[in-house]
C-alpha cells in the first residue's frame, strides 16, 4: 500500500507546554486508522498539527508526496486534507445549506450535493434552519458532509461519536464504511473502542505525546488485556 501520509519525528507545543514528543506514523491510501489513547496524551493535538492549525511544530509531515510543513493553513485543504473538529464547528449564523456549501471544493471527486442529501436526508429537510438548531447527531453529520463535498483525499476526524446516542453512533459508522468504499482515507481519534474496532483497519496507541504501538484490527483480540490496562477501561 502506498503511504498517503507519513509523519516523522513530529513535535508540537502549546505555548510553553511541549505536547507532541516525536510522533511517527504512516497512513496508507484508502486506510482507516484509529488513534487510541487516554485523555490528554496528544491525540487531538496530532490531528491539529497535521492539519497545520497548530503552527508551533517541528519534524516532518509528508502528504501525497509533498512536504506540508511550510504550507499555510488556508492551503492545506487544497492539498487534499479535510478536518472535522471535535466541537464540530457548525456556524450558528449560517443555515444548514450555507454550512454545507461553505468549504470551497478543492478537487474533483467530492460527493455531489444530491448524493449528500440522499446519505443525510435530515440535512435536506432542514436545509433552511440555522446550523446550530440541529441535534448533536445531525450537527456531526453536517460537519462530515461539508468536508465530503470538497473532494479531499483524507479526512481527519476528531471523536465523531462523542456524546451521541447509540443509534446515531451506528449511523456514523455506516457513513464511514460508505466513505471507505469510495476510497477515502480516514484518520480517526476515538475513545469509543467498540465503535472503532468495527470500522478501523489499523490502530495506533498513543501515550505521552508519541505513538507506542501500531497493530492491525486482526490483532485486537490478543491485545485486549494490554489495551484495557493502558486505556484504563
Amino acid at each position, binding site marked *: 500500500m502506498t503511504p498517503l501520509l507519513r509523519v516523522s519525528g513530529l513535535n508540537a507545543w502549546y505555548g510553553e507546554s511541549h505536547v507532541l514528543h516525536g510522533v511517527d506514523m504512516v497512513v496508507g491510501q484508502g486506510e482507516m486508522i484509529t488513534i487510541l489513547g487516554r485523555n490528554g496524551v496528544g491525540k487531538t493535538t496530532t490531528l491539529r498539527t497535521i492539519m*497545520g492549525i497548530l503552527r508551533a511544530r517541528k519534524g516532518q509531515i509528508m502528504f501525497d508526496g509533498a512536504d506540508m510543513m511550510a504550507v499555510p493553513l488556508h492551503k492545506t485543504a487544497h492539498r487534499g486534507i479535510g478536518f472535522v473538529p471535535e466541537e464540530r464547528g457548525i456556524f450558528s449564523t449560517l443555515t444548514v445549506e450555507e454550512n454545507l*456549501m461553505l468549504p470551497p471544493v478543492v478537487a474533483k471527486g467530492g460527493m455531489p450535493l444530491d448524493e449528500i442529501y440522499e446519505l443525510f436526508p435530515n440535512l435536506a429537510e432542514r436545509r433552511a434552519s440555522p446550523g446550530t438548531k440541529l441535534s448533536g447527531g445531525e450537527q456531526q453529520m453536517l460537519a462530515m458532509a461539508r468536508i465530503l463535498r470538497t473532494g479531499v483525499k483524507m479526512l481527519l476526524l476528531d471523536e465523531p461519536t462523542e456524546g451521541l446516542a447509540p443509534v446515531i453512533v451506528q449511523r456514523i459508522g455506516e457513513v464511514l464504511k460508505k466513505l471507505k468504499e469510495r476510497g477515502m482515507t480516514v484518520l480517526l481519534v476515538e475513545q469509543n473502542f467498540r465503535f472503532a474496532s468495527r470500522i478501523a483497519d489499523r490502530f495506533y496507541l498513543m501515550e505521552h505525546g508519541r505513538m507506542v504501538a501500531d497493530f492491525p484490527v486482526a490483532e485486537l483480540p490478543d491485545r485486549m488485556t494490554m489495551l484495557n490496562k493502558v486505556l484504563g477501561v
Partner: protein
Amino acid sequence: MIFGIPLQAFLGQLLIGLINGSFYALLSLGLAVIFGLLRVINFAHGAQYMLGAFVAYLLLQYFGINYWLALVLAPLTVGLLGALVERTMLRRLYDLDPLYGLLFTFGLALTIEGTFRYIYGAAGQPYAVPKALMGGTNLGFMFLPNYRGWVVVVSLAACLGTWLLIEKTKLGSYLRAATENPVLVQSFGVNVPVLLTLTYGIGCGLAAFAGVLAAPIYQVSPLMGSNVIIVVFAVVVVGGMGSILGAIATGYMLGIAEGLTKVFYPEASNIVIFVIMAIVLLLRPAGLFGRDG
C-alpha cells in the same frame, strides 16, 4: 399641529433627523462589520469619513472630477488606503490585547486629522451640491431639498446593499463564518487574512462614501470626523457591537430621536443619544440587537 408644534417644524426636524440618521447608519454599519470580523474598534472611522469628503474635494479642485465620479473614486481610494494600513500595520496587532488595535486606530485618526488640519486649517471648505440635485421639491406638506432626499435614499440603498452582501452571498457566508470561528474557516481552505484585509477596506470605503455624501451638506473640514464619530460610537453601543442590522436600524432610530428632541425640547437634543445609551446599557448591556453578552 402635532402636540402644539407646527407640522412644518416637526417634519423639518424629522427630515434632519433622518439625514443625520443616514450618516450614523452608514458609519456604524462599517464599524460593526469591522468589529465583527477583526475584533478591532476602529477609532480611525471618523478620520476615514473625513478623508472621503476631502478626496472628493481634492478631486474636484485639482482634476475637475465631479461629484458623481467622486462618489465612486473616493470610497475606492480610502478603501485601498485602509487595506494597505490593515496589511502593513493593523495585522500585526491581532494577536495582542484588543487595546492595541484601539490605540493604533486612535493614533491613526489623530495623525490623519492633524495632517489635514495643518494643511487646510479648521475652517470648512465648501463643496457645491451637484447640479442635477440642486433646488427642492414641494411635497405639499413641506419643502424637501433634492440633495437631502437623495442622501436618505442612497444611504438606505447602501445599507441594504451591504446587508444583502453579508447575509445573502457566498462572500457574506465566509464573512459570517469567519466572524464565528476564523481558524476553522481557514482550515477549510479560505484565505482568511485576505478576507480581513477586504473587510477593513470595505468598512473604510463605507465611511468614505458617507463622507462624500456629507460634503455638500456639512462642508469639508478636518474636524468633521471627530464631530460625528462620538455619536456613532454611542449608536454602535446602543445597537450592539457586531450586529449589522442593529447598527443600521439604531443609526436611523437615534438620528430621528435626536431630530424630534430638537422639536420638543431643543436643550436636550445634544445629549439625548447619550441618555438613550445610558438607559440601554443599564437595561440591556449587550445592546438592543446584540446577543447576550
